[in-house]
């Protein structure tokens, strides 16, 4: 069942708000109306995901990402999204010999470096569903992590 958005109406029973019987997130059981944001992260550099893939597959991947981005923006779920230049173009400022030193290259290995992100205003189920849509095609992991609230929780 697709994830439902918290529309703030009524107080879901603990364990009854979702079909999988999990305990709702803190604050939710009191019916507080707040919005959750999740970042969905894509990793890797150019060439890795497309290695040994046909041009049709590569074109299909590009179209999937573009189409999904458009859909998420049109549905209003997408707050922000962007692509980063290839990790090989990054610089990392490290601390060495008592001073900050810029060095060429990304912080993590190229294959684990951030390539792009979506920030979606959805619940976790929906965020995972979106990520699954991409991973189903690319067969490469994507991370889903909640973005912190900046207001205090009671």
């Amino acid at each position, binding site marked *: 069942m697709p994830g439902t958005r918290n529309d703030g109406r009524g107080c879901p029973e603990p364990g009854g708000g979702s079909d999988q019987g999990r305990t709702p997130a803190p604050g939710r059981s009191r019916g507080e109306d707040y919005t959750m944001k999740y970042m969905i992260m894509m990793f890797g*550099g*150019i*060439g890795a995901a*497309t290695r*040994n*893939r*046909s*041009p049709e*597959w*590569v*074109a299909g991947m*590009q*179209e999937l990402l*573009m189409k999904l981005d458009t859909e998420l923006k049109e549905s209003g779920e997408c707050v922000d999204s962007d*692509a980063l*230049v*290839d990790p*090989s*173009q990054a610089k990392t400022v490290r601390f060495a010999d008592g001073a900050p030193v810029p060095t060429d290259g990304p912080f993590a290995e190229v294959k684990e470096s951030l390539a792009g992100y979506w920030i979606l205003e959805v619940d976790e189920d929906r965020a995972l569903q979106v990520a699954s849509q991409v991973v189903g095609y690319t067969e490469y992991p994507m991370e889903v992590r909640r973005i912190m609230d900046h207001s205090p929780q009671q």
Partner: protein
Amino acid sequence: MTVEPPVEDLLRELAPQVLSTLVRRHGQFDACEDALQEALLAAALQWPAEGVPDRPRSWLLTVAGRALVDGWRADSARRRREVVAALDPAEPAPAIDNPADAEAAYQHDTLALLFLCCHPTLPPPSQLALTLRAVGGLTTAQIAAAFLVPEATIAKRISRAKQRIRDAGARFQLPIGPERDERLLVVTQVLYLIFNEGYTASSGPALQRPDLTAEAVRLTRTLHRLLPGEGEVAGLLALMLLTHARRAARADADERIVPLAEQRRDRWDAAMIAEGQAILARTLGTGPIGPYQLQAAIAALHDESPTAEQTDWPQILALYDILTTVAPGPVVTLSRAVALAMVHGPRAGLALLATLDTGGRMAHSHRLEAVRAHLLEQAGEIAAARKSYLLAARMTASLPEQRYLTLRAARLDRHSDVWDQ
């Protein structure tokens, strides 16, 4: 609230004229610019409902003048007396009897304004933003959208630019003599940058930003009208038209890049090509040939060829040979390498590219790798071509370009019988 297109167009045309009149009278470019914005806002609100006034320029001058006075009133009583004496809001702007004289005065002022906005003390992003705002009449929001930066960033950039002009003591008058030629060069560079930014967006998801290119063309047309004798201004306008004419064919239905050799030429704007060719024909030979005229001539050779196969590459190569002596640089070398390859084969082009490898960061761009990849592919070096396409894809900050290069690399895989790393 949306402004009807005719009103908006009229306001954009009048804005630089009104601004330059205000600045000529009062100096204080920044205060005048703020006052103009208020007047433009008032016009945008009132004219669609009440109709455009008989003398719209005077209307704007009057309202902007009042806004200036109100602003200075807040400063000091002494200044107020001075200003009110100089500018009575009840008095309409003096009408110049001869419309031709009035027009000439406004044209002169617009030119001075353009030079002011391209003042050498300003860094290029500020020159661009200020030109688009003061001469182009774009709103801060429109400029921000064009450059994909927040509106507040552009607002700060513009106010800092106005401050710098004030601090530099820049005069609102046309430079003369050798200074004028130098300053004109800066103006054309600013216009070219605006055009280029719209034509091949250097970053971000969109391949082209048509508003910027259209604006660059419009401003350059104005400059050409004001300085008809300047060959390089004509050359720049011709170059823009001959390039802009291809816009409909540069991307396919899915916003994918289509390289020049594969473009559908029936989608090129024939009227714009004809106009560019006419301007070029009029200007060539009237003085020493400059880089914009040369680039326009090259663009014209592409545009006049009915198919990619019929392109006069030897002639294009000859023009690049001249351009290399007139305005050398890595970008020119790169383009010349393409032409060289078309005339003397891909290996000749690749040899020329190799000379750029020692040129440092400026020379080793993603464009260099992309051209190298293309030539390697033509030379049958499939594994090396694939490597270069992927390297170019890694280096570019343009998403459409990255997609294109990645796809080209993938297409090579199919034909590769070498299992490379």
